[in-house]
């Protein structure tokens, strides 16, 4: 029976309660990157334990040099991808793992497991690649503690996206009607070209969740941005309400999350509020077609 997981964060209203920012641990003080952020969780977040049965067999973790083609390295690399997107992602910059070249894993006393990876990552939009070294730490212990990642990008950040970001920002800041889009992509994998930045924004906001939820036993992708709706705001950013479907490969589950997030060229993505929606479990009375 799937347990309802609700992660409530500090509610942001137009009244302007200051947001609590937790920056992911960074290796270098990269001042060119804006601090994409998520708020402090008010309640304890509980990870979906869909794989408790299977988890037992996977407890014997790969240690030492990792086969770059096998799942332990692949899962760790995916976590790096999510981290890089939370840190450097933009409607015009989306990072993907291209190749894992090598990896290493070791136990750290009783506190967790540490990984080192050498990988190539790719700016999906411009199809530009760079190599990247990453360090990850998966903490052990009760409850879902997010992994800690150290990784940075230099080459890919040199691609200038400022003009595109400004144009998008201005267009939707001054729009007469608030934008709203559903099913990005649709059932056939189609996305209208002018909706692609919003697909990317949905993926970026989801990356905070995917990063938070990741363990050595998960592999997350965004299956679909079901809905992204612009909200009115007086602040110097765009604000969105968003419903995305995450695909967790190891359990094969589709997990629904709702988010409230903001974006501006200056601030990047800030997730204000996030909530996991209960498992649909045959609530097929309202069919979801796209």
């Amino acid at each position, binding site marked *: 029976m799937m347990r309802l997981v609700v992660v409530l964060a500090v509610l942001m209203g137009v*009244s302007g309660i200051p947001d609590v920012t937790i920056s992911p641990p960074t290796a270098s003080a990269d001042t060119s990157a804006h601090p994409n952020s998520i708020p402090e969780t008010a309640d304890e977040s509980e990870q979906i334990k*869909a794989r408790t049965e299977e988890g037992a067999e996977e407890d014997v973790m790969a240690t030492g040099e990792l086969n770059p083609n096998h799942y332990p390295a692949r899962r760790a690399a995916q976590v790096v991808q999510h981290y890089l997107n939370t840190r450097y992602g933009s409607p015009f910059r989306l990072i993907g793992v291209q190749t894992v070249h090598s990896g290493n894993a070791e136990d750290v006393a009783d506190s967790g497991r540490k990984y080192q990876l050498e990988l190539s990552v790719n700016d999906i939009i411009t199809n530009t690649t760079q190599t990247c070294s990453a360090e990850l730490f998966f903490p052990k212990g009760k409850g879902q503690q997010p992994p800690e990642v150290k990784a940075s990008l230099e080459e890919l950040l040199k691609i200038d996206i400022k003009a595109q970001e400004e144009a998008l920002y201005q267009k939707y800041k001054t729009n007469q009607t608030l934008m709203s889009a559903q099913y990005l992509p649709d059932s056939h994998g189609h996305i209208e070209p002018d909706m692609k930045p919003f697909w990317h924004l949905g993926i970026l906001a989801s990356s905070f969740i995917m990063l938070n939820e990741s363990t050595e036993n998960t592999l997350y992708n965004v*299956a679909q941005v079901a809905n992204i709706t612009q909200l009115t705001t007086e602040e110097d950013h765009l604000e969105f*309400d968003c419903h995305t479907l995450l695909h967790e490969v190891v359990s094969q589950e589709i997990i629904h999350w709702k988010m409230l997030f903001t974006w501006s060229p200056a601030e990047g993505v800030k997730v204000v509020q996030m909530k996991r929606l209960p498992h649909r479990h045959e609530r*097929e009375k309202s069919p979801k077609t796209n």
Partner: protein
Amino acid sequence: MMRGLFVFAALLVAVFGKVTFEGHKVLRIVPKDEVQLSLIKDLEEMMEFELDFWRGVTTVSNPVDVRVPFHVLKSVKDYLETQNIDYSAMIEDLQMILDKEQKEMAAARVPQAKNTDSFDFANYHTLEEIYSFQDMLVAENPNFVSKIVIGQSYEGRPLNVLKFSTGGTNRPAIWIDTGIHSREWVTQASGLWFAKKIVTDYGTDPALTAILSQMDIFLEIATNPDGYAFTHSSNRMWRKTRKPNPGSSCVGVDPNRNWDAGFGEPGASSSPCSETYRGPSAHSESEVKSIVDFVKSHGNIKAFISIHSYSQMLISYIFFGLCQNDLTSLYGTKYTYGSIIDTIYQASGNTIDWTYEQGIKYSYTFELRDEGRYGFLLPASQIIPNAQETWLALMSIMDHTSKNPY
């Protein structure tokens, strides 16, 4: 646009659920302050009103859209007016809009292909279109292609297998299935392309012609037709079969955990609500049992390839006859080769575990494009390139199998 989608959803409920929305209005409510926001939230809690929130409560001055059934309209309006909450009617009568949309949809329906030459392989198709394609292919190639119905799905749909044969009696054979997991749409789409490819290349391509002089090919395109129909009508992300589970509100069994090979061992779930639910017993699903019965009674299947998406992987115990470059050579698409437990995760009760244990040495699981960017929702424009690169690997396997009889 948002409204359009919800109207469409309501239309489907109306059409499939035979529900009427006569007199239902969709109201747009705009809360002016936190107090009003809270009052509207209270409205959400009032279950007796049977309100259907199309756009839920977010923050002050952001609209809330709600479908209000006719019989509670006055009560809801009274509530809003007493609290001085602004609202307007976005849709005056939902049923009228649904009737209009239904007429428009009927008019817009794309005409079906009249033969397999005019069939659009670069697009995704409905189950009916797949069945129609199969019948057309058989009709166009009566001495080469036949259709075998190996069983029925839970909901009574035919489980069709196309047999490609140049003669002989019970020749050694190759089995290919697509769509066992219904949401993996690129696989059924590829299956259609493979079927056409076989009839096109037979007689023109020496390698395939040679294979078919020794062996038969069996191809099951819609291996989980109930699930596939469901991905069109209700939930694009549906994976399993559609068989209800007694004592549970959750439907379906994972057909790739239901095989009698390591059944009950870790690597599958015992929970009906799980996407990897193994089922009450091995081969409990007719979709699986039908293949089991077919393979056993045929007795001469020599290669078995089960096609999935996504991940870009080739999974097997041994990679006879397969060159690492096969899948990459055409478009540069990278595939990973390995055993399932190494490449993805532990999984028990798999198709190829069972076929391998039956003695079918060349048992493979393919995971097609992509690596997660689009995932299950692969753009239709990638169907043919994906099918073409996959075909090269299939040809290698079939070629090796026919040259190395056992």
